[in-house]
């Protein structure tokens, strides 16, 4: 079983490396997320079928194994993809390296300007995800956004107790 899922994930990765990474659709956040999400759903469904057909040899443990392995692979892949796409710290290192090579000062103002331009994109992305809505220039949480914000706030209070009363 472990071998079957390892072969499946290797094939999924190989398809991306040798064929799909050159396609424009998989260079967008939505495209690459869908590529992994669809595969996880497929693997999950296959796992459920096997768990039902082979409850003793495969069962719940087999399903957990399939989903965990796919989860580790997809989460690691998407984190790297996202970091490589737009890590702010990496842009700063690149800016310092560039300035060093040309004997000039790093242009941090240009980096700040890029960040400023991203601000509108962030609000638009939150609207698109249905987490906030805008009306008459005012932004508010939707019901779904409220639930997510509650969880985020609880987690922040847990890992950053000094900031517990903010937000």
């Amino acid at each position: 079983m472990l071998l079957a899922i390892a072969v499946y994930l290797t094939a999924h990765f190989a398809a991306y490396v040798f064929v799909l990474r050159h396609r424009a659709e998989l260079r967008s956040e939505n495209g690459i997320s869908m590529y992994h999400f669809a595969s996880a759903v497929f693997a999950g469904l296959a796992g459920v079928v096997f768990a039902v057909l082979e409850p003793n040899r495969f069962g719940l443990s087999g399903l957990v194994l399939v989903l965990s392995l796919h989860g580790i692979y997809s989460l690691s892949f998407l984190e790297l993809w996202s970091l490589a796409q737009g890590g702010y710290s990496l842009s700063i290192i690149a800016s310092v390296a560039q300035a060093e090579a040309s004997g000039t000062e790093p242009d941090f103002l240009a980096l700040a300007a890029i960040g400023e331009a991203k601000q509108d994109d962030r609000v638009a992305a939150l609207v698109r995800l249905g987490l906030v809505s805008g009306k008459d220039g005012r932004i508010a949480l939707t019901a779904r956004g409220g639930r997510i914000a509650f969880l985020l706030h609880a987690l922040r209070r847990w890992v950053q107790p000094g900031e517990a009363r903010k937000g």
Partner: protein
Amino acid sequence: MAIVLALAAFVLAVLLHGLAMRAPLQLDSVRRFMLIGVPLGVALVTVALARVGPTLPGIAAILLYALLCELYIFLFTLVLSSVSATMLIMLRRGPVQASALASVYDPQEMVQLRLDRLLRNGFVARASGRFSVTEKGERLHRIFTGLRRFFGHESR
């Protein structure tokens, strides 16, 4: 049984991480979690292998623990550093003007914050007022330049 053990180990790791975040340690949040998560993971592997051996349930439990830890690290680093997450938390107080929301994010402050972190962690150095990339920073830069090329981010 092994899966329940993995879930219990993960819950314990999260609880201990919460305590570690309240302790006066000179470590960042990820290292504090590793300090707890790794030994607990080793203990889980030992117990799982001793009880059920390298069987499907044993391997599934170990992988489940690894996935949950990775997901937890991803989520708490997101909550601590994401501007969008900060915006959502801020909006819990009630609706705000779009301009007020923009104040959550001061681009120059954000650059300064990241730069300070890079200096502190030895990726960038500063001598006589001039910045330079350290060997560690160069290595990271090389790796991510390769990754950008690999993922096709550069040609967009």
